[in-house]
């Protein structure tokens, strides 16, 4: 028995060695193929795999960004779920609200807009597309020049001035300072700014729908535009819809600067507009707790992945389609 066990072990290791050798030989044989994927692989490893892996490692440490990191095990995650009251009380609810509005609702609006513009005569289409895409190009600058002035908290702010002149309010409202309004304004401005990208892909999708399908649909008894939309347009532009959805959801999870830009404060007053990105920044660059900040990033990554999966479930192309 003993012998056989030993033999068995030797055999196993032999087989293993053989396997490695075979793989190596196989790789050698296909070296041109490997050469072809090398540029991508190298970039992928350097710019994606290594950072994600490092982030994962860092999230188990206490790292103040200047002194070397110390391994602390799961402490960061423990703190996250048990002690970080700001996260639980403000950041998660805010991010959730923000994501719901900017994600799905923004998405629906994008689609509606794309569809409506698609109904326009060709001459005007391009003009409208351009107009709607403009905010996405000029986003950052526009926020500080247009919105901050519009929501300016003193009498001279456009909105306050208008409301005062109309007699609706008597005293200027601190729009971007007040916890009651900040999040709403952030949502509004973000939807306005992020309209472009998703809208553009949806619009492209609408253009791509095979015209013969509509013809066939008419023969098959489609009565109105809405039916056309539901039975033909939507199913045939699933890929674009998926793209737009993923973009807007991931985008809404990653948004963070907007609150800071509008209120001019980091963190936002009373954490009213504190999103997960702000929270990460707060820990990473204000409190210099990079370990905890990376842990938060990691959780965000998981959350984003989960939401994307759900989106896939609804919009992704299934095997049988």
């Amino acid at each position, binding site marked *: 028995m003993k012998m056989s066990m030993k033999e068995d072990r030797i055999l196993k290791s032999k087989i293993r060695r053989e396997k490695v050798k075979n793989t190596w030989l196989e790789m050698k044989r296909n070296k041109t193929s490997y050469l072809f994927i090398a540029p991508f692989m190298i970039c992928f490893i350097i710019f994606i795999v290594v950072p994600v892996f490092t982030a994962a490692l860092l999230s188990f440490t206490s790292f103040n960004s200047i002194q070397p990191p110390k391994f602390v095990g799961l402490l960061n995650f423990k703190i996250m779920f048990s002690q970080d009251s700001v996260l639980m009380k403000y950041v998660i609810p805010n991010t959730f609200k923000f994501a719901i509005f900017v994600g799905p609702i923004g998405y629906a609006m994008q689609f509606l807009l794309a569809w409506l513009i698609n109904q326009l005569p060709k001459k005007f289409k391009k003009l409208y597309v351009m107009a709607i895409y403009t905010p996405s190009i000029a986003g950052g600058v526009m926020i500080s020049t247009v919105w901050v002035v519009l929501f300016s908290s*003193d009498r*001279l702010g456009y909105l306050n001035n208008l409301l005062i*002149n109309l007699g609706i309010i008597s005293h200027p409202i601190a729009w971007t300072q*007040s916890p009651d309004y900040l999040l709403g304004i952030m949502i509004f401005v973000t939807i306005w700014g992020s309209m472009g990208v998703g809208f553009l892909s949806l619009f492209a999708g609408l253009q791509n729908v095979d015209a013969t399908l509509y013809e066939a649909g008419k023969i098959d008894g489609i009565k109105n535009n809405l039916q056309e939309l539901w039975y033909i347009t939507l199913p045939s532009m699933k890929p674009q819809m998926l793209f737009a959805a993923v973009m807007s959801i991931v985008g809404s999870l990653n948004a963070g600067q907007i609150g800071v830009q509008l209120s001019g404060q980091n963190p936002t007053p*009373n954490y009213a507009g504190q999103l997960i990105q702000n929270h990460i920044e707060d820990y990473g*660059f204000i409190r210099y707790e990079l370990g905890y900040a990376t842990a938060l990033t990691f959780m965000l990554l998981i959350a984003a992945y989960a939401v994307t999966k759900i989106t896939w479930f609804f919009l992704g192309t299934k095997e049988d389609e």
Partner: protein
Amino acid sequence: MLLTKNSVKGFYTFLIFLFSFLLLPFFNTDAYADNVTVQDYAKILKGWQDSNIQDVSNFNLEIPAADFIAKSSSANINIGSVDGKSNVLNWNNSDGNITYSFNAPTEGLYNISLQYYITDRIQEPVERGLLINGKQPFLEANNFLFERMYKKSQYPFQKDSDGNEIRPKLNEIKNWSRMNLTDRNSRYKDPFKFYFKKGENKIELTGMNGEIAISKIIIKSPVEIVNYETYKNNLPKNTKNFKFYHKLEAEDSSSQSGSNIQLINTAQPGVTPEDIGKKIFNTIGGTSWSNPHDWIEWKFKVPRDGIYNIAFKYKQNFNSDLSSYRKIEIDGKVPFKELLSVSFPYGGTWQSKVLGGDTPFDFYLTKGEHTIRLSVTNAPYRSIQKELTNTVSSLRELDYRIHNIIGVNNVDTYRMWDLKQYIPDIDDVLKKDARIVQEQAANLSKLTGFKENSFGELLTAAKDLQKLSLNVNNIPKKEDSLSSIYTNITDWNNNLSTQPLLLDYVEFKTKENTFPNIDVSLLDKVSFYIKGFFASFTSNDSNTGKMNSNTVQVWVQRNQDYVNLMQTYANEYFTPKTGIKVNVNYCPPGANLLVLANAAGKQPDIATGVDSYTTYSFAERGALVNLKKYSGYSELQKKVVPGSLVPYRYLGGDYGLPEEVIYNVLYYRNDLLKRYNLAVPQTWNDIIKVIPTLEEHNNDFFYPYGDFQTFFAQNNVDVYSKDGLKLAFNTPQGYKSFQFWTDLYIKYGMPEQMVNFYQHFRQGDAPMGITTIDQYIMLELSAPDISGLWNIALAPGTKDQNGMIQRWEAGTQNGAMMFKTNTARQDRAWQFMKWWLSTKTQVNFANDLQNYDGPEFMWYSANPSVVEQQNSWSSDVKKVLMNQLQWYKPIPYVPGGSYMTPRELWNAWTATVIDKKNFRQQMEMAVRNIQSEMDVKQQEFGIKESKGNSAK
């Protein structure tokens, strides 16, 4: 006033009250007229002409300055010798006055000139006023500017290793000079004339600004400058003709009036010498040469006695459709009248200005060296400017009267007004003003030769005024219907007083020659841009890559202009002295790049311009050197105000030194304060008393958002315990301070946030406010419409038990810090630090920064003696700044508290003021949150509860 003087009560008071109420509108007009009791020179001159008072002829009297008959005790005066002249008067301060007396042979008009030498060590303007027989002769006589003279250190300019030219230094030339008393704003072509009665007259010089030595005062009969005809007829007739042409580069100037006039690098085809890919100073002036009295002088040589013509290649594309005017002097004299104001008209491109135009002026020049000086003159625009200024004050007054009736801000626009009932002359005033503005556009068009339509702003203003005059009751419908018109006029009017001019070269020729054409052919243009394009690949603007182990690496978190000057300074003053090379580089503000560099082991030796929080964060984590152990640290530390060292303390070490501190002062509009009869508030209690008056007029008091530190500091509340481990502001006094802060908004209705104080201050609906000193330069440079109507004062404080006003103010600061490397490197770095932060270096740097880069590059030094020696502040402002600087006190940083305290207190403020929650509850919550964060951080840094250690 009437009320306060009258002590009788009852019926009389009532009557007087009623009476003064009725008179109120008239009083206000009087208050405005108050300022112009002394008439301006133009009016006085007219008066002399009307009563036929003549210029005196053939009179010249020199009074030695030492022979004064009286002086006031405040004038610090001694008689001594200065620069080769003995028995001269040294006026060693800027106060008091000195009186001279002389006998005038006849009644009449005289010129006065002074021989002076500027003894002032710092570069502030030297100014004196003049009284004749105890009275100010005319408005402009209250302030004469004594000119200085500056010279470039070298020409041709030195080049750096990349072939870019280095801006030469400007040195003041100290010598005796003679100056006619003239208008400091150059609004009159001739020197001022002064009226003296027959017999004994007294001349009194009054102190204003700066120190000066005077050798004599010259009183003489005015000289009439001949016109060109006469000049030409008097020229020597038998001059030989010969061919001569000489081009003098404008950047090769010999002297200039101030360091504000800049050499300019112009990369354009045709500009000589041509700039291809390298930075070359090939032009001079531009917008930097536009203020009255600014002059540039050139030296040139002619080979023979003879008749010459002069031309300039210039560009004036700054003030559209206006001309820039220059007075031209040759060898210190204006040869004929036509050169008193030579116009350089507007044009998009480079133009040639031949003096005399198509038939060039003949200048007779003798063989050898001559000088030609061009100085900015405002004389041609004077009457237009005067009219426009008068119109603006008339409209401002009218606006005020209207707002007295309809109210300020939140005017009920739906109400129908009959303004004519209250202000019967309203439409006449508007019509008259519209006409005046219209006339000025016509005058300008006549003067400059451009069509009247070019002055659209004025025409629009006139049209709008005309429209309003037809329907005056429309005025209340738009809040700024009048003010927008007169601010436009003011803005436009201010354009007139800046007369920029960019010069490329000056040309001299004899009659036999012609001036070459300055046009650049298309081919030349194309080849210029192609060459420039290729040269852009090779030029290298930065010094990076020259890393050397013996070089001190300095990273500066300021913009490139600061970096360049710092590098120049280090090369010029530090390296020769110590042999240590310095490499100064730009680094984006904030901690990010420094963190990365530190992690990679590539940290600089020194980072400067770093905000104190970043410095503290690095100190907390052991990346910085404790400066305390270095020799010379205690001297450097003593030079700056104590408050500015507070943020750099951590665990008993000092990890940084401040460069700049930006603190708060009080800004106020004197015109509005006078109108509301308010004094400048000294304490917060005063402010509380002032606020209702301001609000009555719908005005606000501005206080920066989120400044909680001030009230703690002024009420002597420590934010942290001595060891820095515990919060200390949760005392009754602390709660009171916080409550006071929130009450300002809740009880006293201060605006929660005023986004743009500058704009409100300018418009006048926030006539007072506390804000940072850097606003000063902004208001001074970009709010000409209220120039002279505002001032700054010490920030209001809180009275302590002894009645002393505690004026502590917080602010922001930046400074220098030293990274941990190795001993040798650190020692070298410390040498640099010691040199850089020394008062001498800082003073020169602060002054040169503005000389090179313009007045907006103000250096807000943490060192009071630097502020004292800075040129650009006037002495009153300086006094305020130096005093306020001593009251600078930020809260210390402690682990965890450094970011958590401001955050939590702002949150508490927001919850209290905006969400109307109870302040005590909010404050308690804040205290809890801050303390718990502090505990966490103390644990992280291992200082928790370990006795004997202090976290401060």
